[in-house]
């Protein structure tokens, strides 16, 4: 009971922090550019953490995350742009946006189910190819759908997304996915990553859990798509190419496959780096790439591996650093003595 209370308190405190930041933005204490970048960061956190559920936690390899973001973005955009389509006209403004985001997520989840059911029987690289193909199919369908503007995109959306909305979504995503991983259902997913045959033999219906992880991740990808659409106030098929999937994948790989905190850190860092390197103009892409190569060379498992960044981990690393330092000091002393 006390545990749950403290969890709720923690959640409320974090939300209050997000709200305070939003108020500072509204008051002009944080300028609009920073506000925009922070909002984008929060959206990428949702994308990266949800992709980590498939690629890191469940050990599958999806390259179609941009496709699910597209499904969510377009579904939500259609709902908010047409006041009496799909949802009755009594829902307006931000309420309509929230419902549209949920429906966007649910549509993405449903599509994730349809794609996942047959393809998650495949393993490893095959799944990557199927999901990659799926992402492209979605994009090409949207490209040829006149109702949403085809190639030129679907625009004139109201700017519903602010920092707090994106922040709230990211906190909800992180909380739900973390809670899921700590549950027996989440452990079932992790066991698939560790050893699929052993998992099956321990009574875990592996295909079912792969689909569940895929559907949950698709849901959050869809909501992230809706957030992005209502931030840029438009959606185009060109926003959801395979490159976006790769960027999300990079965040997951960089942070560490299986590490939620790693994904959060990497999403924030890479978005920040892209902005910080803006000053280098045309060369920033090269610097960005070099940075990634270096990290991949020296931390091939990602910055955090499968571990989570926590107080305990920090304490342990500090301890090991200290023992190393002490050992070195002792060596120096013995060397000096000799």
């Amino acid at each position, binding site marked *: 009971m006390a545990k749950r209370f403290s969890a709720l308190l923690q959640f409320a405190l974090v939300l209050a922090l997000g709200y305070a930041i939003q108020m500072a933005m509204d008051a002009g204490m944080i300028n609009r550019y920073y506000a925009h970048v922070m909002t984008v960061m929060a959206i990428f956190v949702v994308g990266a953490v949800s992709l980590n559920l498939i690629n890191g936690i469940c050990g599958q390899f999806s390259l179609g995350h941009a496709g699910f973001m597209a499904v969510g973005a377009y579904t939500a955009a259609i709902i908010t742009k047409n006041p009496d389509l799909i949802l009755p006209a009594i829902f307006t403004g931000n309420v309509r946006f929230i419902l549209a985001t949920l429906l966007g997520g649910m549509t993405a989840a449903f599509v994730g189910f349809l794609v996942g059911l047959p393809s998650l029987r495949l393993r490893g690289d095959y799944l990557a190819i199927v999901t990659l193909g799926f992402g492209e199919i979605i994009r090409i369908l949207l490209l040829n759908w006149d109702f949403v503007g085809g190639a030129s995109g679907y625009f004139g959306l109201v700017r519903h997304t602010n920092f707090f909305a994106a922040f709230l979504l990211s906190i909800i995503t992180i909380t739900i996915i973390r809670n899921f991983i*700590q549950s027996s259902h989440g*452990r079932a997913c992790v066991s698939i990553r560790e050893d699929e045959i052993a998992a099956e033999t321990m009574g875990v*219906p592996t295909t079912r859990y792969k689909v569940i992880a895929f559907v949950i991740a698709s849901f959050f990808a869809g909501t992230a798509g809706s957030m992005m659409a209502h931030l840029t106030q438009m959606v185009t098929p060109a926003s959801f190419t395979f490159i976006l999937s790769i960027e999300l994948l990079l965040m997951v790989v960089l942070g560490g496959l299986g590490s939620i905190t790693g994904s959060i850190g990497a999403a924030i860092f890479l978005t920040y780096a892209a902005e910080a390197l803006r000053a280098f103009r045309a060369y920033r892409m090269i610097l960005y790439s070099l940075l990634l190569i270096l990290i991949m060379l020296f931390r091939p498992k990602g910055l955090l591996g499968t571990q989570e960044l926590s107080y305990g981990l920090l304490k342990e690393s500090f301890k090991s650093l200290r023992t190393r330092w002490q050992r070195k000091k002792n060596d120096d002393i013995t060397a000096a003595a000799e």
Partner: protein
Amino acid sequence: MAVLETINLTIRFGGLTAVSKFNISLEEGELVGLIGPNGAGKTTAFNMLTGVYQPSEGTIAFCDAPLCSATKALQPYQITRRGIARTFQNIRLFKELSVLDNVKIAYHQNVKYGLLPAFLHTGRYHAEEVEIEEKAIELLKIFGLDTKKSERAKNLPYGEQRRLEVARALATNPKLLLLDEPAAGMNPQETQQLMELINFIRKQFSLTILLIEHDMALVMGVCERIYVLDYGKIIAHGTPTEIRRNPKVIEAYLGEELVHA
């Protein structure tokens, strides 16, 4: 009542018949050995019994209910849920996970709470998780692993990894336990301890056990009955004494020349 009964179980990989007309029958509470030279098809037989492979022909009945027939084949996880658990010849632990989590995963089939409590960590989630944790620790105590519950499985010494695998299999609450060379790579002392442990859990959990083993002394020492497999066929079966004297078995194990010598 037979706990496990197979009739004419056969599997072919392309043109190769790996196991042919495999007929065994286990009575409740028995400890039966399955021996044979390398490549005889012992592990393949295990894989059919646990649903990893689908037999080309034949049927498997577990407690008089079919697990596998011409019309229907259960998935491995369904078979586990019916009450057959196994270990693997080349240890297949969840290496990156803690010892405790390895066992907890095996309790997954008993979990009643759905996804929503998992997302929200409701009271139901906490109640069941506490129960699972208590059960898992209790089980680890029996195997002397409770002090290492937070250790990653891959960091355990070899013998303890083998023990953990048995513990994990037991957590699925099986009626029948299939052990695939549990003593492989162990020294005689460790093997001895393992055999005592197997005897103990067999009584404690009222298990029926089917054991694949290379170590002849061990098999002869603990098993009540033995099946001998060679080139995918059962060439003999009987008590350890009978098997020891069976010329076919001696031939299979020691080669023809020695028999005639």
